[in-house]
């Protein structure tokens, strides 16, 4: 065992022409302290353990590029080190940094101070998604029998920790219990932080939602779901269509009943506001829906056609908890039909195979791709145009007049965006851009760019306008900006 511990390195694979070597250190990125017993690997199976001083060494490596990374329990890996190995010139002092994990612990109790067992504690991290900074759930753990939880492995960041949001089986009453969600204040968690957040949950009174469904064919068994902000509930449907959903906490909900009869889908849906008392007498009627048809035109100067079946279409409503069924296409993919649509306001969802893009989708002249249009029985056809007539944006990126690697973001006025990268020489090229006017920006880290937040962009971005024409390359020069992670 001691012998094992004393071994400084282990090379697991014999190599064909060993010529190069490298050695270095693994250190804590916060304290710069060496990390013993870290595992260092290259991209080709070589493995070494650091000694007590954090040092590692690889012998007999093939010369060329070496991608070295390290791992150690309770540390988080940062970007691997990429270095060049040259024959006869062993590489020294390659430093690999590991960030110490952060940990949040705590206890969840109820209003009587009793431990709440088995409840979820959610981690919500501040991050940019879709160009907007928001809190997204990153992880969740359950409390143990004494109400304790422990969330380890957190990278530095801004977090909110919340308990009690989800319904759970209460270990005290053995029934499903809803609590009013409790959240911590915004916590700025640095690397290596160890903190705590306790929660005291207040039970929510729950209610029944009762009603009946009509229009159920004899030979089908509908499924009922009550989707609420606090979670989803289901209940059986009686022989006469009656239902009784128990344990529903206050909040806005939508009842959705679905059934399939052969290839037809029947749907009934209704919003329900649950307060402090039972909701009685909800009435729903199952409807089969109607068909909405559409035509597809391909605008291609090269004559390229879409090979069927490579794309699908559905209708989505912001007021309906369920999308329409998927489209059915004719053999040439020149027309489609969306079956079983209920009356309402919808927008068209399309996935278009590259290199095509959706040039337009209209219904009676109304843009149905970017906004909702009212659809009722007898609705006119949807007219879709695909095109592969695209251009590209190319150019260079500099940072204080020095060519720089960067992430590039291209945006149009409707909210669509494309991303690309400039290499170490600052050169970039982003192809497949539909004709139009764009704003382009370059960043050190696009993950932090709030490109959908005009105020943020005005404050932080240096934007260059570019007009793209089909079959043309638009050349621009960009300045790399640092995207603040805040």
């Amino acid at each position: 065992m001691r012998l094992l511990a004393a071994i400084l390195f282990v090379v697991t694979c014999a190599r064909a022409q060993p010529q190069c070597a490298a050695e270095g250190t693994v250190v804590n990125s916060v304290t710069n302290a060496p990390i013993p017993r870290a595992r260092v690997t290259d991209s080709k199976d070589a493995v070494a353990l650091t000694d007590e001083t954090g040092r590692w060494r690889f012998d007999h490596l093939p010369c060329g590029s070496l991608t070295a990374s390290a791992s150690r329990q309770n540390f988080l890996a940062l970007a691997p080190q990429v270095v060049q190995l040259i024959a006869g010139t062993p590489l020294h002092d390659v430093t690999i940094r590991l960030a110490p994990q952060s940990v949040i612990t705590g206890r969840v109790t109820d209003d009587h101070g009793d431990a709440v067992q088995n409840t979820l504690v959610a981690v919500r991290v501040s991050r940019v998604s879709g160009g907007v900074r928001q809190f997204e759930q990153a992880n969740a753990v359950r409390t143990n029998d004494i109400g304790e939880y422990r969330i380890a492995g957190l990278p530095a960041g801004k977090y909110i920790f919340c308990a009690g949001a989800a319904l759970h089986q209460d270990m005290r009453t053995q029934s499903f219990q809803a609590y009013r969600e409790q959240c911590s204040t915004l916590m700025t968690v640095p690397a290596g932080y160890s903190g705590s957040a306790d929660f005291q949950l207040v039970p929510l009174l729950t209610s029944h939602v009762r009603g009946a469904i009509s229009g159920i064919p004899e030979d089908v068994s509908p499924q009922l779901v009550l989707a609420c902000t606090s979670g989803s509930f289901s209940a059986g449907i009686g022989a006469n269509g009656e239902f009784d959903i128990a344990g529903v906490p206050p909040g806005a909900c939508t009842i959705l009943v679905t059934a399939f009869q052969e290839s037809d889908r029947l749907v009934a849906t209704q919003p329900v506001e649950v307060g402090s008392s039972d909701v009685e007498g909800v009435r729903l009627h199952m409807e089969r829906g109607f068909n909405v048809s559409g035509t597809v035109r391909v605008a291609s100067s090269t004559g390229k056609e879409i090979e069927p079946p490579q794309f699908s279409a559905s209708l989505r409503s912001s007021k309906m908890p369920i999308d329409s069924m998927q489209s059915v296409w004719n053999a040439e993919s020149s027309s489609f039909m969306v079956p079983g649509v209920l009356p309402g306001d919808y927008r068209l969802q399309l996935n278009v195979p590259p290199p095509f893009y959706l040039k337009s989708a209209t219904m009676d002249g109304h843009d149905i791709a970017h906004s909702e249009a009212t659809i009722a029985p007898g609705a006119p056809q949807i007219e879709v145009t695909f095109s592969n007539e695209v251009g590209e944006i190319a150019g260079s990126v500099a940072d204080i007049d020095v060519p720089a690697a960067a992430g590039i973001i291209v945006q149009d006025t409707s909210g669509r965006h494309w991303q690309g990268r400039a290499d170490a020489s600052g050169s970039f090229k982003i192809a497949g851009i539909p004709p139009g006017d764009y704003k382009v920006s370059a960043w050190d880290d696009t993950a932090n760019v709030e490109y959908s937040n005009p105020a943020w962009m005005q404050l932080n971005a240096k934007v260059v306008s570019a007009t793209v024409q089909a079959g043309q390359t638009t050349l621009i020069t960009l300045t790399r900006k640092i995207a603040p992670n805040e």
Partner: protein
Amino acid sequence: MSKWLFAVTALLGVSPVVAQNCSADGTVVNSVNHAAIARAHVTVTGKDDSSFVDTDASGKWRIGNLPCGHVNVSAVRPGFIRMPQILSFEAAADSPLRDVKIELTPQAVLAGRVLDDQGDPIQGAQVNFMTTRIINGIRGIQSSNSMITNDLGEYRFSGLAAGKYFVCANGPPGLVANGAPSLGERCYPGPIDGGAAGAMNVSAGYEGRVDFTLSPLPAFHVSGVVSGHPADGTGLVTLTPRRLAARLSGLAAPIHPDGTFVIRGVAPGPYTISARSAQFDDRLMAVAPVDVGNGDVDGIQLRLQAGVVVTGTLKIVSPLGKKPEKPQYSLFLKSSDGTVRPGISGWDDTRTSFSIDDVMPGNYRVEFSPPAPFYLKSATLGGHDMVASEVPIGPGATAIELVISDDGGIIEGDVSVDDAPISGWVVLERNGIPSRNAATDSKGHFRIDALPPGDYQAYAWDDNTKVEYANPEWMKRNGKGVAASVAPGQTAQVKLVRQVAPPE
């Protein structure tokens, strides 16, 4: 309720109205220290409805407006295990249920840490919690729960009932595949190979701590050749530890087109190696034991075989010429190496001959259950008894001959303690071999039919989870049987005194 009321309600097709003016009260206490339990959640369930109440600070509870009649009473509280038996009472309007005492047993908790030999916590270590339990009448060790250690190497098992337990820690699954040394398994209070007698006693409310230090083990490879493997097919070789505690961490490797395979990172220990072809229409497999010591194991030869087709006949012996009405037969071929081939693949139209596909060559016993009142009179293959012992089955095996009969008898009786009828659990032995088990009704009465004629010993016990009825030594030591002789078509009457099954 009067007979008249029953008759009227039956004619009207409605349920009788249940009076709602009953009530119940009582206390909830800790079964170990008899302390009152506050905030216990008490449920009283009547015919159609349930009522709930939480106990006050002195453990007292009261529920009014109960439906009268038969009610079940139970209580739950975090930190206490679920009641094994719900209390039942008859609630009457003029006689409130008073001082119903509900005892809750405090949970036991076992927690600890798993460290490596350098004192570092092992995150992701697998900790298996095993309990000793009666399985098919024999006390064995069974995995009860498992969990993964956190970043501090910590684990915690809560909600444990009093009993005998082992807890074992293994290194994180998959570490070996990444090139790290395998970590040896450790069990507390000792290796489980010693059997149930070596388990630790955990009492109600016990809170204990068991830490583990896992040491690196050398890891070896296991290699060999699988023959009979289709050249264009895919397949997998799996190495599964034969030790119960480590059974969740098997290793696997693909079978190469030339039939070779190598499984790397294997820690020393006993394993079962199995190879399986992935061809859906041609299920081929091979199984063999492998013991990995202090070195690589090479040259393993596995031959994939299609299972053989075993045929059989079913003969019905009925003095009255009866046949099972809707024959649903349950058949198992069981081998002591763990192989089980369930089910019958096909019957002929008269349901007197059958076939079983995909039986791996080996030694098997037959378990066959015909619908009552029929019983399995005999099962033979080539004249060898397949009920009492294993018989080899391979290519070219002769047909299994099953004989069922309805000329069996019945044992019926009552169980009592101090001459008072009491519910219990009845075990029948025939020729020293466990035959049938059955629970009595609430008044201690039982009736077990479709019994092969012969001499039986009948036993009555309080708790079936403690009776090692398939352990002859245990039964000889603890059982007080009553002899009963079953003749064809006859009912033997017995009076049994319920015994208390001794703790381990």
